[in-house]
C-alpha cells in the first residue's frame, strides 16, 4: 500500500498531472456555465428571494395587500422592503420577523409591488395582470410568475407570486379558477401556505404509480399514504412551518372540504431537475477530451519508463513485476478517480456560487462514475499496450488511435448496421453512463443495467488483466 501511495504521490504531484487536474476543474466549471447557457436559465430562477400573497380588491376602491417573503430554503425573510406602486403614489413597508407584510392602497389598475432585500429584487402585479418593466440590473429577476384572479364575495382576489425554481412543490393554482391555496415546499422541509378563506386542509405525501392514482373528494386510492399533515388556515394569514417529507414520496394530495388536488412531487428542487438535464449533455462535450489525459498519464508513468529502462532499477527493489504493474496502475487510477470527482465537484461549487444550488453527494458520486469508468478504461488499455509493446511512442499512438476508433468508428458501424442503440448501450466503454444519466435525470431507465455494468467492468478489467499477465511474463 505504501508503494501505491508513493507512486500516487509521484504521479499526482507531477506538473503535467497538476495542470491536467486544473484542466479538469476548469472543465467542470465549463460544464456548469454550459448548463446555464444551454438551458438559458436566467437569474430569476435562482435568486434567493421569494414573494407570495393576495390582493383583496374591494369594490369600494381599496386594495388590501397581504404577503410573505421567504428565501430559497423556505425560511421567512424579515426586513425586506416592499414598495407598492399605484397611480399617484408609492407606499413602503418592511416585512416582519415572520416575513409577513400587509398594507392598503387606493385602487389603481396598474398597481404593483417591488420587493427588495440584500441587493435582490422581485416584483409582482397586485391586480392580476402581468406587469411590470423594471429597468436596471435586476431586469432579469422580475416578472410575476403566477397571477390568479378569483371572486370572493363582492371582492376580487388576486394571488400573486414571484418565486425562484427552488421549490419542490410550487404554488397550486390549477384547476382554474378554484385555487384557494398557495403552497410552496422548499428544501424538503419548509412549508409555506397561504389562502384567502377559512379552510381546513389535509396535505398527504404519497407513494404512487402516477398512472393509477385516483384523488377525489372521497379521498385517495391507488397510493400508499406515507405522511399526512392537517392545517386550519385563516384568511390572508400565511402559515410557515417545518415538515418532514418522506424520501419515498412521489405525489402530494391536497384535500379540503372545497378543494381536491393531486400533483407529482419531486424530491429535488425544480431548478435541479432542469439543470441535471443539461448537465450530462455538457459533460459529454468535455468528456471527449479527457481520455487523452489519462492516455498520456499512462505513457508518462509506465510506457515511457519501461521504454527507457527506468523501471529496471525499481524492479531491483523488493517488489515483483506484478506488484510494480499494479502499483503504478493503481496510482494512476487514483489520479483518474480524483479527476473524475473534481470534474463533478467543480460544477457543484460553481452552481453553489452562481445559484446557491447544491448537488447532492449521491449525485456527485454517481455522476463521477461516468468519467471515472471512461478514464479507467483508457488507462487500462494504454497499460495493456505498454506491457505488450516496449516502445513508449508506439504505446502512446496506439492508445490515442484506440480511443478515436472506439469513439468514432464503432458508432459509425452502429449507424451503418442499424445497431447504434445496441452498441451505444452495451458495447462501447463506460456504457453504464446511460443508466446513471437516466437515473439522475429522473427518466425511465430503458436499458439492462446489469449488462451495462458488466460491459463497463469488462472494458476496464480485461485489458488490465491482459497487461498484467503480459508484463509478468515478458522481459521488462
Amino acid at each position, binding site marked *: 500500500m*505504501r*508503494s501505491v*501511495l*508513493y*507512486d500516487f504521490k*509521484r504521479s499526482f504531484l*507531477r506538473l503535467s498531472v497538476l495542470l491536467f487536474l486544473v484542466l479538469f476543474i476548469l472543465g467542470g466549471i465549463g460544464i456548469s456555465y454550459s448548463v446555464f447557457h444551454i438551458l438559458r436559465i436566467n437569474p430569476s430562477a435562482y435568486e434567493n428571494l421569494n414573494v407570495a400573497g393576495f390582493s383583496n380588491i374591494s369594490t369600494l376602491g381599496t386594495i388590501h395587500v397581504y404577503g410573505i417573503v421567504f428565501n430559497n430554503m423556505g425560511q421567512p425573510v424579515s426586513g425586506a422592503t416592499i414598495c407598492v406602486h399605484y397611480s399617484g403614489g408609492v407606499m413602503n413597508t418592511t416585512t416582519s420577523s415572520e416575513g409577513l407584510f400587509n398594507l392598503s392602497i387606493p385602487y389603481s389598475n396598474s398597481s404593483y409591488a417591488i420587493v427588495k432585500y440584500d441587493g435582490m429584487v422581485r416584483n409582482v402585479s397586485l391586480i392580476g395582470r402581468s406587469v411590470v418593466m423594471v429597468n436596471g440590473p435586476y431586469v432579469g429577476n422580475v416578472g410575476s410568475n403566477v397571477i390568479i384572479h378569483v371572486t370572493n364575495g363582492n371582492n376580487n382576489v388576486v394571488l400573486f407570486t414571484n418565486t425562484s425554481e427552488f421549490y419542490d412543490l410550487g404554488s397550486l393554482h390549477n384547476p382554474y379558477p378554484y385555487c384557494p391555496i398557495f403552497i410552496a415546499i422548499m428544501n424538503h422541509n419548509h412549508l409555506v401556505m397561504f389562502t384567502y378563506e377559512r379552510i381546513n386542509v389535509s396535505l398527504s405525501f404519497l407513494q404512487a404509480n402516477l398512472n393509477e392514482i385516483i384523488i377525489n373528494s372521497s379521498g385517495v386510492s391507488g397510493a400508499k399514504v406515507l405522511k399526512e399533515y392537517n392545517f386550519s388556515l385563516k384568511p390572508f394569514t400565511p402559515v410557515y412551518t417545518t415538515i418532514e417529507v418522506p424520501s419515498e414520496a412521489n405525489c402530494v394530495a391536497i384535500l379540503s372540504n372545497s378543494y381536491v388536488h393531486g400533483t407529482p412531487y419531486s424530491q429535488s428542487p425544480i431548478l435541479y431537475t432542469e439543470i441535471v438535464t443539461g448537465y450530462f449533455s455538457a459533460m459529454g462535450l468535455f468528456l471527449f477530451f479527457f481520455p487523452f489525459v489519462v492516455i498520456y498519464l499512462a505513457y508518462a508513468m509506465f510506457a515511457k*519508463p519501461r521504454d*527507457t*529502462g*527506468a523501471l*529496471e*532499477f*525499481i*524492479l*531491483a*527493489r*523488493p*517488489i*515483483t*513485476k506484478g506488484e510494480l504493474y499494479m502499483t503504478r496502475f493503481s496510482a494512476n487510477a487514483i489520479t483518474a478517480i480524483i479527476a473524475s470527482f473534481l470534474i463533478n465537484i467543480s460544477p457543484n461549487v460553481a452552481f453553489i456560487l452562481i445559484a446557491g444550488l447544491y448537488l447532492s453527494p449521491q449525485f456527485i458520486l454517481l455522476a463521477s462514475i461516468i468519467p471515472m469508468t471512461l478514464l479507467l478504461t483508457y488507462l487500462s488499455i494504454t497499460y495493456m499496450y505498454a506491457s505488450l509493446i516496449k516502445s513508449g511512442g508506439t504505446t502512446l499512438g496506439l492508445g490515442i488511435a484506440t480511443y478515436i476508433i472506439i469513439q468514432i468508428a464503432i458508432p459509425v458501424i452502429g449507424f451503418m448496421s442499424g445497431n447504434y442503440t445496441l452498441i451505444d448501450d452495451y458495447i462501447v466503454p463506460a456504457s453504464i453512463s446511460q443508466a446513471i444519466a437516466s437515473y439522475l435525470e429522473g427518466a425511465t431507465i430503458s436499458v439492462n443495467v446489469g449488462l451495462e455494468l458488466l460491459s463497463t467492468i469488462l472494458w476496464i478489467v480485461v485489458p488490465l488483466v491482459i497487461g498484467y499477465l503480459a508484463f509478468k511474463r515478458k*522481459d*521488462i
Partner: protein
Amino acid sequence: MMIVVEGITKYFGSRKALDNVSFEVKDGEIAGFVGLNGAGKTTTIRTIVGVLKPNSGDALIDGKSIVKEKKEASKNVGWVPELPIFEMDARALDYFVYLAGYYGISKDEALKLGKQLFEEVGLSGRERDKLKTYSQGMKKRFALAVSLISNPKNFLFDEVFNGLDPQGIQFFRDLALKMKKEGKAILFSSHILTEVEAIADKVVFIHQGKILKVMSMNEIRNLIKSNDVKVVLNQVNENVVQIAQAFGKPELSGNTLLIHDFNGDMSVLISKLTPYGVLEISKLGGNLEEVFFKVIRGEL
C-alpha cells in the same frame, strides 16, 4: 550467505544469451566477472538482481531464490548498473525516499538515511537536484546509495568503472575492498582487467553465454608466473650473450637482452653485466589479460 548462480539459461527470442550459467560468490570474496562485449555479463547480473526472469535455473541470494522469493532476495542484494537509468525528472532525494518505500522505510526515516548515504557516496549537497542533471559518475553513486538502503550482504557492480574519472574509479575500488573486509560477497564485472586483477579473489570467465572457467587469483598468479628476465643495456656485443648463456637461454634484440628459463642469481648477473651499463633489469610475468585470452581460445 552468498550469491549462488545455479544453471541459469536465458533466451532473448530464439537467441540463447545465457547457457547454464553457474558460479558462486562467497562472503568476504570479490569475484571478477570478465568476458567480451555481449558475452552475457550484464544479462547474468540483471538476472541475479531479478530484473530478468531466467528461462531455467535460479540465483540464490543468501539462500533466497530470486525467482520464487524475489522480494526477500532483493532486500539482500545491491546493484550498481553500468548505465543507471532512473526517472530522470525526479529529484534525487525524493526518488531515494520513493525507492526506500519499497523497503518498508517511512518517509522520515528515508530522509534521514538518504542524507547519510548521500554523504557517504559523495553526493552531499546535490540531494535536491533532478537526476537528469547528474553526471554518469553521480548516477552510479546515486545507484550505490539506493543499493545501500537495506545494507545488503551482497553486491553486484556491473562495469562500474566505465565512464568514471580516476577519482571515481578509486572510490569504487576502495569501496569494493571495504565491503570485502566487511564480509560481503561482491561480483564485479569489468573490462579493465588490471583493476579486476588488483582487487579480485577469483575470476569468473564468461564467453558467448557460457561460463568457461572460474579461477582463483592464486591459480591465475601461478599460471602467469614466468622465469624470464629482461635486461636493458647501454651497450651490447657478443660477450653479453656469452655471459647470459650461463644463466639461461639468451635472446638479444637491440639493447634488450631476454634470458628465458633464468637459472641463477640476479645480483651475479648484474655484476657481470655492469661493464655494459645495466639500465634496467626485471623479472617478466604474464597478466590476467593473457590468461583471459587463453581461456577464451580454449587453451586453458
